[in-house]
């Protein structure tokens, strides 16, 4: 069996995979830069934690409510985001992250600086889930996210998002309801973050505003970009590699954040498409080895 330590690391990485996949919907597929994804993770985590500890809900309804609440807030906050483009959008989403964190930090209802404790692990048929059980749950949520991702990208929604990402005005001129699809992207991406946040809260059993700050958003975004934005494999691999990095680089404790910064910098400079993006060395090399195969879109 896997040791407790390994399972803990795997669960953390798994939660990051969900977060990266959900951010990829907003930023990768629909092309809307979001620098505030951790805010929606936080909204999910706090919804779940408050319903569980204060309202006495069970894990499962609280988990669903976390996704729904994050989706709702995501849709509402998408409205100010629709007014602004590109760099203004990036800074607006960043601002949303700072404001949401400030709300958690300063309003006593949300536990303020003390956070919320006493959140237990989920139960199934009256028994509390063990670590490995929790890992299975995380993997199931990842599989569901991947299935939803594939289904959406094969539908008109995926095509509409691609069109908006490439040229918003042209997409609008072709009769695509740009507002509707942008709000949909923010809603679905935020829902994913909300589910991940709920899992995170019940896994850590204790949450604080700092878990959902702008730095966390940057961690999630760098996973998406590291692997290859706008692909399915990219965010998954990015979350696994960058999620495992703190554990692997434990011997270089003193320098690991420094190395992380340098890694991001060098990757953007020399492999701006991420390690598994369409124009990355790995993917081009792979294609060169198999010249006669027609490779799918993603």
């Amino acid at each position, binding site marked *: 069996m896997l040791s407790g330590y390994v399972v803990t690391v795997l669960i953390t990485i798994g939660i990051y995979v969900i977060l990266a996949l959900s951010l990829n919907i907003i930023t990768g597929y629909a092309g809307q830069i979001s620098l505030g994804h951790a805010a929606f993770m936080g909204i999910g985590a706090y919804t779940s934690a408050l319903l569980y500890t204060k309202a006495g809900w069970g894990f499962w309804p609280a988990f669903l409510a976390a996704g729904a609440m994050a989706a709702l807030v995501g849709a509402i906050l998408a409205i100010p985001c629709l007014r602004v483009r590109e*760099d203004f959008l990036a800074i607006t989403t*960043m*601002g949303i992250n700072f404001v949401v964190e400030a709300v958690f930090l*300063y309003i006593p209802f949300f536990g303020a600086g003390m956070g919320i404790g006493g959140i237990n692990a989920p139960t199934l048929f009256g028994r509390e889930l063990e670590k490995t059980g929790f890992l299975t749950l995380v993997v199931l949520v990842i599989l569901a996210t991947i299935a939803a991702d594939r289904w959406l990208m094969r539908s008109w929604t995926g095509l509409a998002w691609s069109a908006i990402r490439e040229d918003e005005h042209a997409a609008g001129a072709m009769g695509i309801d740009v507002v509707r699809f942008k709000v949909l992207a923010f809603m679905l991406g935020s829902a994913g973050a909300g589910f991940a946040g709920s899992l995170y809260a019940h896994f850590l059993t204790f949450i604080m505003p700092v878990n959902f700050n702008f730095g966390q958003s940057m961690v999630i975004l760098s996973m998406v970009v590291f692997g290859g934005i706008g692909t399915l494999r990219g965010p998954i691999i990015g979350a696994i590699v960058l999620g495992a990095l703190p554990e692997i680089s434990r011997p270089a404790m003193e320098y690991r954040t420094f190395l992380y*910064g340098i890694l*991001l910098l060098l990757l*953007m400079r020399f492999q*701006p498409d991420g390690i598994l993006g369409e124009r990355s060395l790995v993917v081009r090399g792979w294609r060169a080895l198999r010249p006669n195969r027609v490779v799918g879109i993603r």
Partner: protein
Amino acid sequence: MLWQQIANGIATGAVYALTTLGLTMVYGVLRVLHVAHAGIYTLGAFVGLFTYRATGSFWIGLLAAMVVCAIVGVLIERFLYAPLLHLPRIVPLIGSIGLFIAMEEGFRIVAGPYALAYDAEVQFGNLALGPLRLSAPQTVILVVTLVLLGLLWLLLSRSRIGLAMRATAMDAETTSTFGISTRAVVTLNFIIGSALAGASGVLIGVYDNQVWPTMGSIPAYKCLAIVVLGGLGNIPGSVLASFVIGLAETLLIGVVAIPFPRDALAFVAMILVLMFRPHGLLGRG
């Protein structure tokens, strides 16, 4: 008490103005969100402090900080941003964030994690304008800022170089057809912007009497909010927004005592303004 807070607000606004000017100038010519600008600001504070310790002169420290920061700014432009300009905006943004993380950690590794005292003696009098009293450090901040802003204004509005800079910010392609080296203009923007950031690092270091590796973390993002508030790339707009935010923060927290974190206020103001003016206070669509 109220006048004291106003004096604090003006000093804070002046430092914001110096820091955000560089950001807005870089954005004006490159359309890059230069997060690592705050790393340059921290670098300036450290260079200023170490030069001050070696020479005993605040002014030599200030000058050294501006020179070193200008050089580092140009290097960042050459080796990081220039090759990435044709790629999606998110690529230079993430690269810049990576560089900022590495710079902060680099300062920590070199100078240690603790705050270092910056007790430079600044021979400068207090300033009293009616009921408004500025302490010696506040006076230095205000005087240095106004002098630098004045020089920048002269350069931009009264010289041929300034004309080339404004033209490049407006439309780089057309400008280059007039025989103007837009490369040189971009470099000049980085020199000026980074030197100003270095100066503001030194000033804030002296004002707070401390310099520490992560002193740029909050300015890194707050200054982006201020720049957006003023209208990205708009120089008078970002100066106006700096003073508005500096005063609003100090007065709302210090006088009205609203229970809200000081550093989130700039973002609330920014989001509210963007609702009604999606291109910022003085931005044009």
